[in-house]
C-alpha cells in the first residue's frame, strides 16, 4: 500500500513536469476546447454527430452567420432565392482552393451535397432536390419545396465544405490523418481525445467580410487541447500552459476575474438545460402529473444558486434570441409550487406522511437520469430536491456521458436532466419528432397534432416569416403538452491570457469560429 502511494507520488510529479512544458514562441497558441466538445472521433463534417471549434478552422461554409443571427457571404459571394422559393442560386467566390490544391467549383458543391445525404444530419438537405452546376462558379440548388432555413443549414458547422473526392477516396480514414477543406488552417495532427494541431493555410485569401484580417491568418499554428476536467483546464490557463479556454464554467468566473493576466468575455449562449419527461411511462402518461413536475422546477433558484446568476432562466424550449421562443406567455413554464400541488391532488396523488405522494397505495416514485459531468450531477440533485418539495420522490441514476444516448434509445427513462446546444427552432423537430423516439426524442412524444404542425413547420414554410410563425405554433403546442420542463440558458464564457493573446474586439458568429480565429494574434 505504501508502494502504491509512492507510485502515485511519482505519477503526480511526472504530470507536474508535463504541466511545465511552455508553449513555443512565435505566432502559436493553445486553446482548450469546451468540455462538451471533447471526444469527437474525426474531422469528417459529413459523418459528424458532433463538431468542435476546430471544424470551422479547417472548413469554410458557403454562408456565415453572425452573433445577431444575420447571414453574410463566405465561400458564396452572393445568392438569389427564386420568388417561389423553389430554387437558390449561389455565386461562388473565385480563386478558392482546397488544402490539396483543387479549386472549389459548382460541380464540387453538387457532389458534396449528394454525399451529405448519407449524413446523420441529412435533414439539412432534405428540401434540396439536386444541385446543378450552371457554370464553374454558379451553383443552382433546385428545391423539392421552399426551405427558408437553407441559409442557416449552409452556415452550420456540419456543412463546412470538404473536398468530397477526398472523403470518398479515404473512406473511414478521412478526417484522422488528413482533412481537406478550404479553411484558414490545415489539419497537421489529431490525437483522439487529446489534441488537434492545425497549421496556417498560407494560400488563404477568401475570408468572410466578418473577419477584420485580410488574407492568411495571423496565427501560424494552433493547438486545441481536450480536457475533461474544468479544474485542470483552469490551472493550465493560470499557469500559462494554455492561452485560452473556449468555455468557462460559472464556478470559475470570479477566480478568472481576480487574475490580473486573464481576461473573460461572454457571448450570448446557445444552450438550454431542460428536463425531458417521458410521456409514455407511468405516471407521466397523465398530463397533469407532467405539468406538475414541470411547475415544480424553480428556475430562478437554480440560476442564482447553481449558476451564480450568470445566464438566464429558460421558460420554454428555445434560446431567447430566437423569434420562435416568443410563444404565448401563458404557455411559458415557470415555477408554481401551489399549482403543482393542486394538479397532483387533482390527479389523485395524495401527500403522505413521509412527504411523498401516493395513489392506490403506490408511492409517486420516479427515475431521474443524469450524466456524469459534474454540472449535470449537481443540477440534478437540486432538481431532485425541488421535485421532492411537491411530493415527487425522484431516484437519481447517473450514466456515463458517452453512453447515456444509447440508454435513452431503449426508452426506459422517466425524467432526465440534460442540455442541448443549437440556435435554430428546428431543434424542436429534432427532439420531439415522432419518428425519433428514444433518442433524440427522449420524451417519446408522438402526438398527431404536433406531427401535423411539425410537418407544416419543416416543409410548408415558404418565407422566413412564415417559418417563424409555423415553428412558433409547433413549439407552443409541444410546450402545452409538457413533454419537458425548461430549466436554464447559460451564456458562453471564454477566458484567455491577455499578456499572450490579442483577441478581436467582438466575436462574430455564434461561437468562436474560423471567422474570428483569423483575427487572433500572439503579442510579441
Amino acid at each position, binding site marked *: 500500500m505504501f508502494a502504491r502511494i509512492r507510485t502515485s507520488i511519482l505519477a503526480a510529479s511526472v504530470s507536474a513536469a508535463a504541466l511545465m512544458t511552455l508553449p513555443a514562441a512565435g505566432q502559436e497558441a493553445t486553446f482548450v476546447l469546451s468540455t462538451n466538445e471533447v471526444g469527437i472521433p474525426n474531422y469528417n463534417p459529413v459523418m459528424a454527430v458532433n463538431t468542435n471549434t476546430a471544424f470551422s478552422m479547417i472548413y469554410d461554409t458557403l454562408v456565415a452567420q453572425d452573433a445577431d443571427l444575420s447571414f453574410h457571404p463566405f465561400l458564396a459571394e452572393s445568392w438569389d432565392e427564386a420568388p417561389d422559393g423553389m430554387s437558390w442560386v449561389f455565386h461562388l467566390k473565385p480563386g478558392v482552393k482546397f488544402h490539396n490544391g483543387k479549386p472549389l467549383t459548382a460541380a464540387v458543391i453538387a457532389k458534396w451535397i449528394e454525399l451529405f445525404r448519407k449524413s446523420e444530419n441529412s435533414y439539412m438537405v432534405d428540401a434540396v432536390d439536386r444541385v446543378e452546376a450552371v457554370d464553374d462558379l454558379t451553383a443552382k440548388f433546385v428545391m423539392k419545396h421552399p426551405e427558408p432555413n437553407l441559409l442557416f443549414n449552409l452556415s452550420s458547422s456540419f456543412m463546412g465544405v470538404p473536398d468530397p473526392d477526398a472523403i470518398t477516396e479515404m473512406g473511414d480514414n478521412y478526417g484522422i490523418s488528413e482533412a481537406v477543406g478550404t479553411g484558414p488552417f490545415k489539419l497537421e495532427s489529431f490525437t483522439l481525445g487529446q489534441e488537434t494541431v492545425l497549421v496556417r493555410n498560407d494560400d488563404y485569401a477568401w475570408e468572410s467580410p466578418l473577419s477584420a484580417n485580410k488574407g492568411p491568418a495571423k496565427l501560424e499554428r494552433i493547438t486545441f487541447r481536450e480536457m475533461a476536467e474544468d*479544474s485542470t483546464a483552469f490551472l493550465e490557463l493560470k499557469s500559462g500552459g494554455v492561452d485560452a479556454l473556449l468555455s468557462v464554467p460559472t*464556478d470559475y468566473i470570479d*477566480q478568472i476575474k481576480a487574475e490580473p493576466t486573464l481576461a473573460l468575455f461572454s457571448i450570448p449562449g446557445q444552450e438550454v438545460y431542460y428536463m425531458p419527461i417521458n410521456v409514455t411511462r407511468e405516471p407521466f402518461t397523465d398530463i397533469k402529473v407532467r405539468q406538475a413536475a414541470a411547475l415544480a422546477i424553480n428556475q430562478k433558484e437554480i440560476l442564482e444558486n447553481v449558476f451564480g446568476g450568470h445566464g438566464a432562466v429558460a421558460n420554454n424550449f428555445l434560446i431567447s434570441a430566437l423569434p420562435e421562443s416568443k410563444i404565448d406567455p401563458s404557455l411559458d413554464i415557470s415555477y408554481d409550487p401551489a399549482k403543482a400541488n393542486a394538479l397532483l391532488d387533482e390527479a389523485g396523488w395524495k401527500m403522505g406522511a413521509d412527504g411523498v405522494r401516493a395513489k392506490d397505495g403506490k408511492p409517486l416514485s420516479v427515475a431521474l437520469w443524469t450524466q*456524469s459531468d459534474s454540472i449535470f*450531477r*449537481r443540477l440534478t*440533485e437540486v432538481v431532485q430536491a425541488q421535485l421532492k418539495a411537491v411530493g415527487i420522490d425522484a431516484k*437519481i441514476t447517473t*450514466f456515463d456521458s458517452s453512453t447515456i444516448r444509447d440508454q435513452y434509445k431503449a426508452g426506459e427513462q422517466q425524467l432526465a436532466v440534460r442540455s442541448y446546444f443549437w440556435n435554430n427552432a428546428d431543434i424542436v423537430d429534432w427532439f420531439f419528432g415522432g419518428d425519433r423516439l428514444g433518442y433524440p426524442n427522449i420524451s417519446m412524444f408522438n402526438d398527431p397534432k404536433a406531427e401535423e404542425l411539425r410537418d407544416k413547420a419543416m416543409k410548408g414554410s415558404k418565407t422566413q416569416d412564415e417559418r417563424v410563425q409555423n415553428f412558433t405554433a409547433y413549439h407552443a403546442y409541444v410546450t402545452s403538452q409538457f413533454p419537458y420542463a425548461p430549466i436554464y440558458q447559460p451564456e458562453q464564457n471564454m477566458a484567455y491570457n491577455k499578456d499572450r493573446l490579442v483577441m478581436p474586439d467582438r466575436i462574430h458568429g455564434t461561437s468562436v469560429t474560423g471567422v474570428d480565429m483569423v483575427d487572433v494574434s500572439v503579442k510579441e
Partner: protein
Amino acid sequence: MSLRRTLGPVRSALATRKGALAGLWLALVVVVAVLAPLLTPYAYDIQSLPDAFRPPAATHWLGTDEFGRDLLTRIIYGARTSLSVSVVSIAVSVLAGMILGAAAGYFGGRLDQAVTVVVDLTWSFPEILVALILVAIIGPGVTGTMVAIGVAYLAQFTRLTRAQIMTIRSETYIEAARSLGASDGFILARHLLPNALGPVLIAGMLATGDAIILEATLGFFGLGAQPPLPSWGAMMSSGSGLLFKAPWIILFPGLAVATTVIAINLFGDALIHALDIKTRLREA
C-alpha cells in the same frame, strides 16, 4: 474455536502502538457510523441553497457543500455508506472465495481447473476495471457497487484459500484423519478451513481498505451510492470541480478516506505480525 484464534492475535495487535492507534480510529469510525443520527443536528439530504459554500465555522464545523448541507453530517453518514459497502462486499467475497477455493483445492481435478480458469481470468484485470464493467451491467447504486466490489476481489480469496488448502491437504495428520474414516466435509471444516482462515481474514481486512478506495472511486465517477445518499467518493468528486472555490468540500472527505484506509492497513500489518503469517501470505 476460530473466534479464540482470531481474538488472541487481535489483542496482541492492539498491544502495539500503531495497532492501538489504528484500532482506535477504526472503532471511532464504526461508532460514528452507527450512531450517525444521534451525533448531528442536521439532515444529510435537506438542501438549503442560500447556505451553500459556507467555510468551516462554529455552526458548520467542516463548512457546507454546494447545496448548503452540513459537510460533517455528510461525512458521518458517508462513513455508513463506505463501511457498509466495503465490509458487506468483502465479507461476501471472502465467504464465496473460501468455499470456491476450498472445494477447488481439496477436490482438485476438473473442478479445480474450471475454478482456476475463471478466477485467473478476473485476476488478470485490475479490480477497478472488473468493478466498472460490472456496475455498467448491473447499474449504478449501492447494491451494484457491493456486487461489483465483491466479485472484483473474489479471485484473490479463492486463490489464497486454494493455496492454503493445497499445502495442508497432504500433511500427515490429514492422512491420519482420513484413515480413521473422517468424511471430506469433516476434514474441510475441522482441519483445513480453520488453518486457512487466518491468512484469508488478514487478506480480507486489507482488501476492505482497498474496497473503501474502490467504493470511493466508483462514487467519484458517479456510479456508487446515488444522491442524496452521501458517499465519500461522490463528495470528493463534486468537490474536485470546486477545488478553488470551496476546497473544504474535497479536503475533508479525502481525509476521511485516507485516514480510514491507512488505519485499516496499519491494523492489518499489526495483525500479520501478531499472527506471524507473513511467509504464508507471501507464498500465496
